[in-house]
């Protein structure tokens, strides 16, 4: 029997549709505040999702002008939730890898080992916001690859027992358990060690769109394809593979296609190349059951969070749990342990061991 399907949900904004805010239960004035964020994260946790992702970019998203940074949103909900994984999108094109590594490690501390990272590239418009030369083409993959490498090195730059508190010698740290990462890339270098100790999971769970970053640096590949066959053949399969699925459901407020049509009348829902499902809950259960045979997880992108999340919570996830197609994350788990990933050995101690 294949392992259960892992269920992820994207919680950014009001939903995947750029006009989703028009069908939300709150006014735009309340969209960005803590009450809404707390409510939606707890709803997703109670529904039984393994993890939530938080999309982000430096510049405003389509349709909605406002957004709090994804790391800050994930951190805010970390102590207000207990088992759901919290996985912000963080760009690699213009950000400082040293800062990103600190922020993500800190999120792992605040969430007691439930943090991950969706590696992202950033569009050219952000260059002007930062006063930096545009990075594009092959350089986007280079920056993503280097940022992941630097983050992974920095997370390991403190051994787990680096704080020795040795009263006899008066040493809080043992410097031999701290490592300069001495990263040398094509465009920058990073010395290290990190200013944050090794995070609870050792290494956060790294998600990336299939093909962006070398497969051996990624724990979860996000696979976009227009149908199950395309998803089944996407990605390298080196790690876990998650299918990207956009979801509109029939609800008491209207059938899926009517609701999509209502929003499309304001702003068309752009085609992203992802699998898109519109219809009754039972059909989604059947689709996800089929996907469970070919991928390790799915990331759902609900049309309107306020409308799809109750339906997912009431009709879709319970059916998947009852059929044992999917499972809730166990109490006390880290995101790694939910995925069956071991706590990795520190790369610096591994290098020190005799051949």
């Amino acid at each position, binding site marked *: 029997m294949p392992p259960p399907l892992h269920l992820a949900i994207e919680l950014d904004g009001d939903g995947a549709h750029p006009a989703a805010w028009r069908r939300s239960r709150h006014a735009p004035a309340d969209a*960005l505040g803590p009450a809404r964020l707390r409510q939606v994260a707890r709803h997703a946790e109670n529904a039984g999702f393994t993890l939530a992702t938080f999309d982000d970019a430096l510049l405003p998203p389509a349709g909605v002008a406002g957004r709090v940074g994804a790391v800050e949103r994930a951190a805010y909900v970390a102590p207000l939730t207990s088992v759901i994984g919290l996985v912000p999108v963080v760009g690699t094109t213009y950000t400082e890898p040293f800062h990103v590594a600190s922020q993500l490690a800190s999120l792992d501390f605040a969430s007691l080992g439930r943090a991950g990272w969706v590696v992202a590239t950033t569009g050219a418009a952000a260059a002007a916001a930062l006063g930096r030369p545009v990075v594009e083409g092959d350089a986007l993959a280079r920056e993503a690859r280097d940022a992941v490498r630097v983050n992974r090195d920095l997370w390991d730059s403190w051994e787990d027992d680096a704080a020795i508190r040795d009263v006899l010698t008066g040493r809080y740290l043992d410097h031999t358990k701290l490592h300069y990462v001495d990263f040398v890339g094509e465009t920058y270098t990073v010395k290290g060690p990190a200013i944050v100790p090794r995070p609870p999971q050792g290494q956060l769970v790294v998600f990336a769109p299939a093909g962006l970053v070398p497969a051996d640096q990624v724990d979860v590949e996000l696979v976009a394809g227009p149908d199950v066959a395309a998803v089944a053949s996407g990605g390298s399969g080196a790690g876990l593979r998650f299918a990207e699925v956009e979801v509109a459901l029939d609800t008491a407020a209207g059938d899926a296609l009517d609701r999509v049509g209502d929003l499309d009348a304001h702003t068309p829902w752009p085609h992203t190349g992802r699998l898109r499902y519109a219809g009754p809950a039972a059909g989604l259960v059947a689709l996800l059951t089929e996907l469970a045979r070919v991928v390790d997880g799915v990331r759902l992108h609900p049309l309107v969070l306020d409308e799809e999340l109750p339906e997912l919570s009431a009709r879709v996830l319970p059916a998947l749990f009852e059929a044992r197609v999917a499972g809730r994350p166990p109490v006390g788990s880290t995101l790694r342990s939910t995925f069956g990933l071991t706590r990795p050995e520190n790369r610096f101690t591994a290098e020190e061991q005799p051949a």
Partner: protein
Amino acid sequence: MTSADDLPRPDAQLHFGVFFQGVNHWTIWSEPESGSQVDFASFRRMVATAERGLFDAFFLGEGLRLRESGGKVHELDVAGRPDAVTQLAALAGLTSRIGLVATQNTTYNEPADLARRLAGLDVLSEGRAGWNVVTTDNAWTGENFRRGGYLDHADRYVRAEQFLQVARAMWDSWADDWAGSADGPAWARPGAVAPVRVTSSQFDVDITPTLPRSPQGHPVIFQAGDSSDGRDFAARNAEVIFSAHGSDFDDALAFATDVRHRVVAAGRPADDLKILPGTEIIIGDTETEAEEKARWIRLRQVTPATALAIAGQVWGLDLTGRDADGPLPAEDPVVVEPTGTMGSRRWTDPRQIVQRWRDVAEAEKLTLRETVIRLGPQRGHVGTPSGLADRFAHFVRAGAVDGFNVSPYFTPDGLDDIVDRLVPELQDRGVYRTAYTGTTLREHLGLRDPITRRAPR
């Protein structure tokens, strides 16, 4: 003691912040009371105690490279701490009143990113964010960043001031009545969000910010400059100044007087900048007990290894293995140029320092370690709850301070006796709030709304 009515500010109120620095030898790590420096539970406990004690702010330090000595990571002090904005965002949902202040560097950040992160913290905390603005020109720190050490010393405040200019423009970019409605044309009222375009010697940015103002308008700006340039920078830009001038009354008053003159010279009302020096508070049942406790604390802060490391820097020698509880080193100091790799301590001519150390050690019959403690920086206030409350009431009513940023010597329980024993005494004297009267950090501190280029709220 002078009666309150004879002092310049008889109705002044004392403000407390807690400063979690997390990298120095003043945090004792060796005792059963010494908790984790990095576990979230430690921060959760400390911020809860501070909020119970009606503190204005919980304040996290930051340094972007681990300190070193002798070319290796410095081993003797606590180190390793969470990213400030991330940690404070996590604490925002567990608290409802206390301000959340992040130390963040203007040299190795970009305003488009950092101003957005701070605005996010401000929105999520509903108006409780603060930013302690720090600068560096340190190429050694720059080794962790894309640009490396690019900034000349003379330009570090230039960049910081221009950084603040961009940050403030970003925080002003949304009109207060920005919100659209579900049946209206757009999520945000057309024209309500203005792009920010700034071109200056340090920046060339064109950005449409993603966040409105919080209930306090802008995050509160903290700054810790102590040089003349630093004080002037604070006088022009900051709303809270953080200093080491909070132990001795005359020193505190002189600093406060100097800073207020600079604030007025910068065209601001004298009380536009709140003066909250850093301090340590050690409390005992009697003066004698408090002094004994202070000595116990000093001996755990200045361990034999730390005493030898501090003396080793003065002498320019590796004193590892010497007897810290014996006499001062007999050698003359080695005069070397600074290596610039220590990260926080500044170089001074060692011959003068050593002569002073010898004079004091001889006169007072002190060991090396006792001399280090005796001549170390004055660390704050030691006394009984009532004695300290009298002293602090005098400090604030005389205008020497507006309050203190307290650095606890234990994580996470180091605030307990301040909150449980000192705060009630201050309340009895009418110099400390008995409940939060506002919801934002700006309100707690008694600061005006930020002056913005948009219409008043």
